[in-house]
């Protein structure tokens, strides 16, 4: 259910995942005070960039899940993400009768992403508001 018509667009309803931006750095899973973020990944070798280069390794996401039965909507995972892969979305209508059904896997988190509002003008996550600068 999308209630963005009745709620402020920046309501903390759910958390969307933009998988393309995730580098599997594990920062969100480590910072989460509720231990509700589960990430699995594996390494894939990449060929060297040039003839004298070394073989490289890329981390590939296998699982990204948020257990909303534990989540306290603090937003630390969103704040800590260095690559803007996590976003607040205003939707809140994902009640379930089983705890397990509140664990949203990557596909479902991706669906929430499309409900996330666009960033406010001039409020890029890497820029601080003028009043916030020291």
């Amino acid at each position, binding site marked *: 259910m999308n209630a963005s018509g009745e709620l402020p667009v920046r309501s903390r309803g759910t958390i969307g995942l933009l998988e393309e931006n995730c*580098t*599997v*750095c*594990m920062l969100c*899973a*480590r*910072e*989460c005070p509720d*231990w*509700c*973020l*589960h*990430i*699995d*990944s*594996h*390494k894939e070798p990449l060929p060297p960039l040039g003839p004298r280069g070394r073989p490289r*390794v890329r*981390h590939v996401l*296998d*699982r990204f899940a948020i257990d909303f039965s534990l989540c306290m909507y603090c937003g630390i995972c969103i704040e800590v993400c260095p690559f803007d892969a996590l976003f607040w979305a205003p939707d809140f209508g994902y009640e379930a009768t089983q705890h397990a059904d509140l664990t949203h896997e990557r596909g479902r988190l991706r669906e929430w992403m499309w409900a996330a509002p666009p960033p406010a003008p001039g409020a890029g996550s890497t820029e601080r508001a003028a009043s916030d600068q020291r």
Partner: protein
Amino acid sequence: MSPDEVAAALGPTASISAPYGELVADLPIADWHGAALTARDVLELHFFDFLTGVDLRDQGFQVVLRVWSVAARSGLQLRTRCSADSPVLASVSDVYAGAGWHERQAAELLGIGFPGHPGLEPLLLEPGSGHPLRKDTGLAARAAIPWPGAKEPGESDRDLGARSRRKNLPLGVTARDLKQP
């Protein structure tokens, strides 16, 4: 209310300080109930603010009582310490009736006994569930599931057991609380 007035009222066994800008009287445990009576009747601190306990581990449990004078607009903290093995302290609920609920809370969460209290029934917890504010109480939720942040980038759950190097530990949780893989 000056430190001298408080010292004179509470007697030579109390040590008076003002570590946070408010008067604090540290008392021997035997003087606890008498000091509460003195605070109410002599120093005219009629308003009970709170009573709570602090787990100081080997040094026992500190119990803090804060009372306030509405007329003089000043407060006083009374502190004492009871032993870690058998924390027992005379109840002040007959002096300040409001302390009764706070003593029930301290009894439930820290396991401090208050002889003289009219009814120390638990407020919230099931019988036999321990005293959660004691620092040696493990956090059951942390022992039940492994920490999701223990994995390095590029690792899955199945890689964790095979690893021999030092493991990452979550902040704010002691190794004793964690689920052993």
